[in-house]
């Protein structure tokens, strides 16, 4: 059920030491980690982890019912306390990202709910949440047009780019941009950014993130293959 890539602490530090920091932190996932949900996954990107579960296509509340397609709802639960406006914004970003990816018209008058529990935020939290939501949708075998992969890039004060930044880097960075790509043409689905950056920086960050997203898609394929081939 689980697929693990083990990276030794020293190796990880060595990677960080290299300075280029143009690598993703190691990804690990456990598909179907919970039993009662239709799809569930716990994903960690480096030290940032989240658990996502999917219910669907399930019964929908009458006031949210859409007669031509499924209602997609995303609920984000922070590690501590109640969800605040910033979490609402994050929910909205994730919903707008995932809804076009899902073939919602195949299940009219039903709901597909995605619940994401943040378990540890040590940088690139939004990217981790989007990736875990996508993996949970794959685990529930929801019909999808394409998959999405999110990658964060931080632009430091000294104009350096850091891919998949950790909390420390995020704090010191001038701006943080999260790109979401689709799995077919690697086109942009969503951009969420904070801080200021130039056009040139944006183009450079985009190129970096696009390359990195390919390894995320490869990771999805491996995770799903491990789960499915278990029964073979």
């Amino acid at each position, binding site marked *: 059920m689980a697929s693990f890539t083990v990276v030794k602490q020293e190796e990880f530090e060595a990677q960080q030491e290299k300075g280029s920091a143009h690598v993703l932190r190691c990804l690990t996932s456990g598909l179907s980690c919970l039993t009662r949900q239709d799809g569930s996954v716990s994903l960690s990107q480096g030290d940032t982890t989240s658990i996502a579960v999917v219910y669907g296509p399930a019964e929908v509340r009458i006031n949210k019912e859409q007669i031509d397609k499924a209602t997609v709802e995303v609920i984000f639960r922070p590690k501590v306390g109640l969800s605040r406006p910033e979490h609402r914004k994050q929910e909205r970003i994730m919903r707008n990202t995932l809804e076009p990816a899902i073939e919602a018209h195949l299940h009219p008058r039903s709901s597909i709910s995605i619940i994401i529990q943040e378990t540890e935020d040590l940088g690139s939290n939004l990217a981790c949440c989007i990736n875990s939501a996508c993996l949970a949708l794959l685990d529930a075998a929801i019909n999808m047009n394409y998959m999405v992969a999110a990658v964060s890039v931080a632009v430091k004060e000294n104009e350096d780019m850091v891919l998949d930044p950790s909390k420390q880097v995020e704090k010191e960075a001038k701006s943080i941009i999260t790109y979401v790509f689709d799995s077919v043409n690697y086109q942009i689905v969503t951009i969420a950014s904070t801080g200021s950056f130039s056009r040139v920086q944006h183009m450079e960050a985009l190129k970096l993130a696009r390359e990195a997203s390919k390894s995320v898609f490869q990771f999805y394929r491996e995770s799903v293959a491990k789960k*499915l081939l278990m029964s073979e």
Partner: protein
Amino acid sequence: MAAPIGNVVIPGDIFSFTQLKSTDDAKKILLGPGLKENDLEIKVIRPGILRYRKPGVYWVDCHHKRYIPSKGESVIGIVNQKVGDIFRVDIGGSEQASLSYLSFEGATKRNRPDVKVGDIIYAKLLVANKDMEPEIVCIDSYGRSSGMGVIRNGGFLFHTSLNLARKLLNPQCILLKTLGNRFQFEITVGINGRVWVKAHSDIQTIAIVNAIVASEYKDNDQIKEMCKRISKAVSRMEVD
């Protein structure tokens, strides 16, 4: 390059028609669940294993827990509500199915069937459409019950993944036969992933349930081995 039959495919993978045709002489190609025609290409929309059957049938075999009703399938449902002349039955889909009180064997306006809220029902889907409420019946087209109806007298109902339910119903799966050699029990398997079991004692029932749940990722040899171990353990427990 031929289509990767037996391999894992994920949403967004694209095949051309020639890729699928090269493995097949059939003139027509039939796309099953998980595949979609998109212009001149075939797109995968579900993660799973690509399967092929002659002549020219392709589909994606995936691991599901949520049931999507489909016409003619036999399911196990739980009666949730009684509204006038119909019962609302939970069959695990996105909507509750409706069941008319007249669709039981021998039921007439005067002679109503004895169905209460909370009863377990084994029924067949008469209407299953993504835009409509599913409807189930407990009779075949000749008006006979043919095994369907309310399941009474105790027993134990549990949920499994849809793959496991399909595996149990597959004639090539030896689990039920092997268990049947060692225990006496009644079983009803709904294609919606619900299984009802009743054996002579609670110990046996629990043992059978455990055997079924554990068999999801086991092949026939492993199943035989497991049944042997379970029957030994049960006979020891029953002596105590």
